[in-house]
């Protein structure tokens, strides 16, 4: 079974330019996928991953209008054929109305994949089959098969919106597989998912590829990239390389793309290993143990575009200690989300709160600004109880940034949005202006101050939400999942903001899934499981390899570099490759 007709996807010299833009979203990109191939696409935000995903699924130019050139063939059906030589031109959006159902696509936001019209997962999967006119007699067999293959049989009768994000993504994938489509395209499917759900999706993609489906996944998550056969690296719409992930994602190969090399790949490169072992922790540890040429000169990785200025407090904020005693919270549904929490956070400490979904992290921090009141127990900020105080009043001390920026932003410009917080708190104009300037600088969007927040990507929007709270100069900054859905420059910038405020003596509390982020920027890590604190201490004590079992019980793993350190018998918790190598260099005789 060889030859072009058997290919699941063929892209030849694809060029895509959206209307009104002055540069190409994709330029001269070529790619071919056989059935059963699993290829990932990596690149910084704006590199063209989403555009490639849309084109591979046949949605450009059929539904999404753009100027195109090149050729895209999906399972033998031509979705686009405009070889250069005919010139770049626009194609009518209605062409090929009845074709184009050879590829499915999954997007980052799980809830957006659902039809919104079905009351059970089983019927949701049937939606695509109904639209394609599949005979009713065949539907049950297909649905049962994909329920089994994706391990979601237990969800068959659940309402689609009542399941978790990770489960919704599996349902989305199942719906497409049920349509017997030979090509599955995914655009950052794990962006909104926690590490456990990410791993589950990654494993399923491997399984699907094993069954003959061609899988193309644009992703940041190294769990997915590691499992792909080949990785296409994009930068500025152009192909940088197409090679196995261990090769394509090496630090040297990624120079100039704006992408970070995954920690394990960087370690493997430093240890001199070949690309096959790039994600193999045991092999890396063995190589580092033996190799005398470990890079002792490795400096800790400089944080990209770190804010230069220190945070100049404008408002006089007395030190606000946080004291939580015996905190119990029971939701009206009867669920006991917190089972007795005792926590003391002295002023100026930086704390990361980690634990799987449902462990009570968000419930806990929502007590700090009065959004939730204790069912039992006491919560004090700066010596005064916050229960019963209106939330907007506590906001002048405790700045709380929610996870979803699209639940917060509404202004016409970034600058106007940053003024929202200070305006609510009635800060004097001079103070407000100074704080907004400082916040713009801290989030790195001074040049985009007049831009519409919704014209910027979601990473920037998350930073804008943080900026609007920064501009209130809070005594305590609480960040709920600031790293979920962020690209790595964005994560670095959030980390730099945490460092900056910490250096200025303010308290910083962050909830995160990202263990490297927690290890790098926080002096204390609180680990939660099922409404209780199960570990509390510096990263070296809570996130080390020796704690792996405890962390696993709440859906977490130590950062990759720490796992390698544990295999080497070291009790370090390095946040990344450079820190580990540096640590090795200094501990070697």
């Amino acid at each position, binding site marked *: 079974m060889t030859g072009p007709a058997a290919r699941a996807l063929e892209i030849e010299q694809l060029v895509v330019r959206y209307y009104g833009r002055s540069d190409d979203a994709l330029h001269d990109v070529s790619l071919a996928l056989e059935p059963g191939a699993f290829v990932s696409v990596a690149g910084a935000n704006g590199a063209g991953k989403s555009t490639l995903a849309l084109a591979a699924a046949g*949605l450009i130019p059929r*539904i*999404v209008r753009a100027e195109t050139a090149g050729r895209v063939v999906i399972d033998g059906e031509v979705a686009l054929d405009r070889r250069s030589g005919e010139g770049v031109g626009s194609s009518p959006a209605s062409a090929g*109305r009845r074709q184009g*159902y050879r*590829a*499915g*696509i*999954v*997007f980052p*936001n799980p*809830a*957006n*994949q659902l*039809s*919104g*019209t*079905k*009351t059970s997962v089983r*019927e949701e999967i*049937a939606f*695509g089959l*109904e*639209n*394609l*006119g*599949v*005979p*009713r007699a065949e*539907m049950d067999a297909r649905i049962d098969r994909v329920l089994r293959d994706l391990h979601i049989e237990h969800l068959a009768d659940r*309402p689609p*919106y*009542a399941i978790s994000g990770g489960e919704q993504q599996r349902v989305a994938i199942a*719906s*497409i597989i049920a*349509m017997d489509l030979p090509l599955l395209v995914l655009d950052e499917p794990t962006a909104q998912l926690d590490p456990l759900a990410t791993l589950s999706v990654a494993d399923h993609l491997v399984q699907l590829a094993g069954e003959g489906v061609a899988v193309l996944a644009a992703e940041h998550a190294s769990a997915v990239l590691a499992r792909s056969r080949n990785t296409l690296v994009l930068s500025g719409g152009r192909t940088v390389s197409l090679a196995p992930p261990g090769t394509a994602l090496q630090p040297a190969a990624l120079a100039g793309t704006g992408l970070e090399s995954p920690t394990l790949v960087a370690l493997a490169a430093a240890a001199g290993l070949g690309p096959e072992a790039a994600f193999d922790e045991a092999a890396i540890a063995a190589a580092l143990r033996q190799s005398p040429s470990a890079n002792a000169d490795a400096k800790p990785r400089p944080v990209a575009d770190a804010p230069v200025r220190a945070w100049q407090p404008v408002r006089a904020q007395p030190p606000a200690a946080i004291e939580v005693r015996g905190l119990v919270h029971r939701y009206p549904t009867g669920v006991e989300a917190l089972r007795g929490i005792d926590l003391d956070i002295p002023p100026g400490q930086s704390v990361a709160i980690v634990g799987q979904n449902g462990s009570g992290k968000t419930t806990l921090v929502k007590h700090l*600004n009065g*959004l939730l009141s204790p069912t039992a127990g006491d919560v004090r900020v700066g010596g005064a109880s916050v229960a019963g105080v*209106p*939330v*907007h009043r506590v*906001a*002048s001390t405790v*700045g*709380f*940034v*929610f996870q*979803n920026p*699209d*639940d*917060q*932003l*509404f202004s016409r410009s970034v600058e106007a949005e940053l003024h*929202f*917080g200070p305006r*609510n708190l009635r800060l004097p104009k001079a103070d407000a202006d100074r704080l907004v300037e400082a916040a713009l600088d801290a989030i790195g969007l001074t040049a985009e101050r007049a831009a519409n927040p*919704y014209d910027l990507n979601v990473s920037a929007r998350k930073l804008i939400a943080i900026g*609007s*709270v920064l501009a*209130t100069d809070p005594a305590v900054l609480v960040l709920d999942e600031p790293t979920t859905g962020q690209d790595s420059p964005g994560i670095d910038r959030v980390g730099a903001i945490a460092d900056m405020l910490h250096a200025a003596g303010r308290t910083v509390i962050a909830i995160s899934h990202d263990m490297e982020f927690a290890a790098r920027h926080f002096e204390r890590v609180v680990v939660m499981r099922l409404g209780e604190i199960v570990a509390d201490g510096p990263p070296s004590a809570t996130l080390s390899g020796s704690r792996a079992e405890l962390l696993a019980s709440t859906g977490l793993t130590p950062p990759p570099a720490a796992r390698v350190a544990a295999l080497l018998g070291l009790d370090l918790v390095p946040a990344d490759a450079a820190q580990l190598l540096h640590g090795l260099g200094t501990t070697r005789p």
Partner: protein
Amino acid sequence: MSEAVGFFRPGAGWLHRLNPYPKLLLLVWGVLAPFVLPVVAIPFLIVGYLAAGLSAGLGRPYIRAALIAPLVVVLPIILINGFFYPGRNEVIFAIGPLALTVQGLVFGLPIAGRVLAAFGVTVAVVMSTRPDDLMETLVQRGTNPRLAFVVLSAIQAIPRMLDKAGRILEAQQARGLPASGSPSARVRAVVPLLGPLIIGSLIDVRERSLALEARGFSSGAARTAYRIVETTPRDVTVTRLALLALALLPIVAIARLTGALPG
């Protein structure tokens, strides 16, 4: 997190087992009849509808929704018309400056009765019919599936939009927005609370449309249905009776207008 709105409750009574199409016809007749039939018929209709609902096993929730909830609409009709009917009227009794008049009651009571009757029949039908089944039946009878799509996804979107509004309120309060207090504070809360709700929804439209397209939404192929809604012989009989009853309504209406029928 709420999952569904609407009055529908699963059950096994005769109304539940009836096909949605005859139920829809009965609903239309049930709402129009109090307007078309003579006024004296209204109390009988009300009692009839309530009896039907109860006999179908709809129970206490039905009484609550069909009798108690409408009071907030029905009582003002009786009271405001009873006490505030313009013109010189016969007084039945007076409480200080307020006088209950015959003309007011003659005007208001039939209207109140019609509203109550309408509630009685619509709640009974809505409580015993799944929206999906109703839409599937209508699509099989020729309704545009895209219209059915809008109705069903709107119904599911309601609780999620309410949840989203709640999250936005929390997030904006956490950024210092007082959503209560002085009138000017409340006016200034409008855009920060409604903006993200609407903008966020608009942003989602693109991704949701693309996901739908990828699942064949505009494929143009003849659509098949997963959900099977049965039509029994009893459904066919009821449908015929309902159509006949509906056909009789215009006749009665004309008879009343031309004076052939009193009331």
